[in-house]
């Protein structure tokens, strides 16, 4: 039982090592496009569109880091728990997006921006991880 712990910690350490720089890049990119770094970005044309979408690139890196964590996780049980948590979070996010989307489309509820889907999933993943940990305690 304890022999598997160092391997699972290595996967967690690698995840943290990859996650942190991508999040720093994400915060920097959001600050840049929000005009908080002392210049007002121009969003005209294709270059402007690429600039506007630039915060998504480090998030792509975060998603890659999540995938690598699942690949490198040697402990089958920990991997099972994470996979279950992710699938629960995906189901919850799809349910909320569908319900909110129809409510805003037809019942006048304020429209949630699309960029909130990934943060919603991350929040749901955190809650689902806690639930799965409790279920398998």
């Amino acid at each position, binding site marked *: 039982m304890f022999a598997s712990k160092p391997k699972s910690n290595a996967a967690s350490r690698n995840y943290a090592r990859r996650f942190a720089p991508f999040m720093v890049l994400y915060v920097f990119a959001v600050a840049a496009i929000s005009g908080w770094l002392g210049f007002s970005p121009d969003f005209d044309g294709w270059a402007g569109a690429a600039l506007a979408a630039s915060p*998504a690139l480090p998030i792509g890196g975060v*998603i890659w880091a*999540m*995938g690598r964590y699942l690949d490198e996780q040697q402990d089958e049980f920990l991997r099972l728990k994470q996979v279950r948590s992710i699938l629960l979070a995906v189901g919850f996010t799809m349910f909320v997006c569908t*319900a909110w989307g129809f*409510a805003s489309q037809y019942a006048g509820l304020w429209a949630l921006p699309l960029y909130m*889907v990934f943060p919603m999933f991350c929040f749901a993943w955190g809650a689902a991880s806690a639930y799965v940990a409790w279920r398998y305690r």
Partner: protein
Amino acid sequence: MANEFPDSMKRAQGRYTRSMIGAALAYAAVLIAAALAIRNLELPQWAVIALALAPVAPALLMLRAYLRFVNEIDEFHRRIQSEAVMIAAGIVGFGSLAYGFLEEWAGFPHLPLIWVLPALMFAYGVTACVVRARYRD
């Protein structure tokens, strides 16, 4: 070896296909009926909200059909399914974040949240084929 499906797997696939087609037809029918009713009838707000949320029920039936399918298949195919769903969720999460920033900062046309679930289902269809092909002999 990966191309030979046992009878139990074929039965599970048959049940899944029939359930999914039924739920998808119900989803389309409820969606069209609700949209027509909201646009053409003078309805109280509570009825508008109820009709707006009505398509969520057949969407949940689709999810139920998929979860039942995943529970009926063997470990190997379950791993393929969960990998495919997670890769599809990563693609949709990244895409929704990127497009959300384009909407917010570069003036791209608003895409309602109701498209997130169909996007996930399309992406899952593609990733399931890719993941299955990866595990083929």
